């Protein structure tokens, strides 16, 4: 009996395509990946997609038009497992940094004027605002090692493991001196790890691109950064840059406190 290969689709919605590109960038392992699965659709890398029932859908990007809303629903209907890959799919991405503040219509007009498009644009939202999502692979862009570990588990029928720790975990394993000690702005403790602390490794602050660490102590960190002379609004603005929808609950708690 020929070995059963899981049917896989890789889809991109609104975003920078960095997560799909990262998969393409796995170079040596890309061929392994293509061999281990039956690649039904990966439009960025291959022609002739076969849009039928699939076992696993990896979906990048936020939902930003009416057409995309319909399309993701359609993918959800025929996918056994749906994985949100990358910050845009998980949290909404940078385009969701003003999520729910009501400025979208004004900003859209500011950019495009009054033109009517063939599909109606909506404010960028994470996939789980529209459909149910089985697994999340955060990051902007996703990390190759996390992605390959998750993909390997899913295509071989095992559940992926989460990494629910702050950036600081890997930051210390990489032997970096903590930027907070120099009173520098760093979002490491508030941000989910998995990036191998890419920014602090270069002496630069974590910008929060993995999205919020659910266990983050937002209140204390805010106080700490304020004590460095960084204004409250600046901090809130910065955590929102990549926090999208997922940061809203934390922000709400904070503003409730103030």
């Amino acid at each position, binding site marked *: 009996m020929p070995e059963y290969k899981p049917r896989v689709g890789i889809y991109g919605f609104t975003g920078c395509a960095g997560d799909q590109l990262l998969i393409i960038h796995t170079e040596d392992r890309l061929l392994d990946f293509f061999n281990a699965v039956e690649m039904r659709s990966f439009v960025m890398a291959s022609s002739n997609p076969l849009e039928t029932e699939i076992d696993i859908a990896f979906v990048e990007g936020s939902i930003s038009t009416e057409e995309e809303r319909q399309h993701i629903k359609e993918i959800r209907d025929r996918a056994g497992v749906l994985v949100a890959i990358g910050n845009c799919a998980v949290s909404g991405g940078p385009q969701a940094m003003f999520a729910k503040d009501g400025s979208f219509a004004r900003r859209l007009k500011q950019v495009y004027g009054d033109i009517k498009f063939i599909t109606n644009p909506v404010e960028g939202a994470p996939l789980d605002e529209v459909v149910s999502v089985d697994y999340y692979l955060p990051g902007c862009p996703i990390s190759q090692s996390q992605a390959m*570990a998750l993909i390997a588990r899913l*295509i071989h029928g095992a559940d992926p493991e989460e990494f629910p720790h*702050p950036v600081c975990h890997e930051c210390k394993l990489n032997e970096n001196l903590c930027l907070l000690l120099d009173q520098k702005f760093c979002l490491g403790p508030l941000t989910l790890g998995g990036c191998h602390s890419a920014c602090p490794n270069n002496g630069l602050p974590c910008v929060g691109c993995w999205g919020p660490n659910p*266990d983050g102590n937002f209140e204390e960190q805010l106080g700490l950064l304020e004590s460095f002379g960084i204004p409250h609004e600046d901090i809130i603005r910065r955590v929102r840059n990549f926090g999208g929808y997922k940061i809203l609950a934390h922000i709400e708690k904070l503003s409730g406190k103030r």
Partner: protein
Amino acid sequence: MRILKMKPDFLKEFLMGLEGFGALYGPKRQSGILKYAPIESYDELVLDGENTLLPLKRLFHPMRFDMFRFDSRGFEADYSIFEKRVIIGVHPCEIHGILKLDEVFLVHPPDPYYAGLRKNSAIIGFSCLPAENALCRSTGTDIVAEGFDLFFVDLTDFYLVWVGSSFGYDMILEKEDFFDENVTHEDIQIYIEWREKRNRMFKKSFNFRDMPDIIELSYKSEIWDYFGKKCLSCGQCTMVCPTCNCYNVTDVLDLATETSGRRERMWDSCMFADYSLVAGGHNFRHARADRLKLWYTHKLKAFAHKYGSPACVGCGRCVETCPVDINVLTVSEALTSCEVPEE
């Protein structure tokens, strides 16, 4: 124990000559940060009182490594981390730290990875003068009597060299003529003066001896809540502490086949929320205050029950590291005075 004398002029040649005993490691500055790393030239070695960012444990209990490879035939241990090494420039508190880890990793059944790294490594200790946050006098770990192969005490005009193992003695034999057996009364006097001078240099101390009881008594203290509110749960304290040993284990599958992959081990921290999470979602230590309490109980009290003394070796790293000033000093101070620290 044998104690010898050596002129400082010989140091470089002696140390660099040890290559035959294993790859040389020692504190070395990389991108401004002091780390234990392979040493290529003598000038790279930093032999003063400064702490490395991560303690010596990183060489024996690696941050991340593969325990096993597995495939359809089963598991096979991966010992590729083993390497013959000579680690130079290890401070007394670091040696004490390793001795504490020995208690965990070498008791039955010994952890083969730790044991293998330990067995293949020689430790060459170096005396140090206390750094800003050194607390080792409080914890009684400022001097060391075991756990090294050689130990160099720098008395400026000469070194006193303690020989702690037969392996250490073999190293001495390599360059026998560098060493002088004749330790005079005068030398002893110099050593004693050095000890006294060193003792006077400690700037910080804490009530280490009474902490076990105080911790026990403070189980319900609101001081834990105060610190719990502050803690960022960044886990840095646990990473930098020489006596934290927790780790997590994860399987990583290969992409190509569904049966092969590796079992990876990586440092974990009791400061992270999922540390005590069990099936069904019950979390024994959801509150930050509880996580901190576990840590400080472990550092300042619990270890003593089993091994005679608590786990803290007074390196001062938690003092240097915690961004919100939670460390053995502030915690013991708060618990002792029953008052939360002033902002």
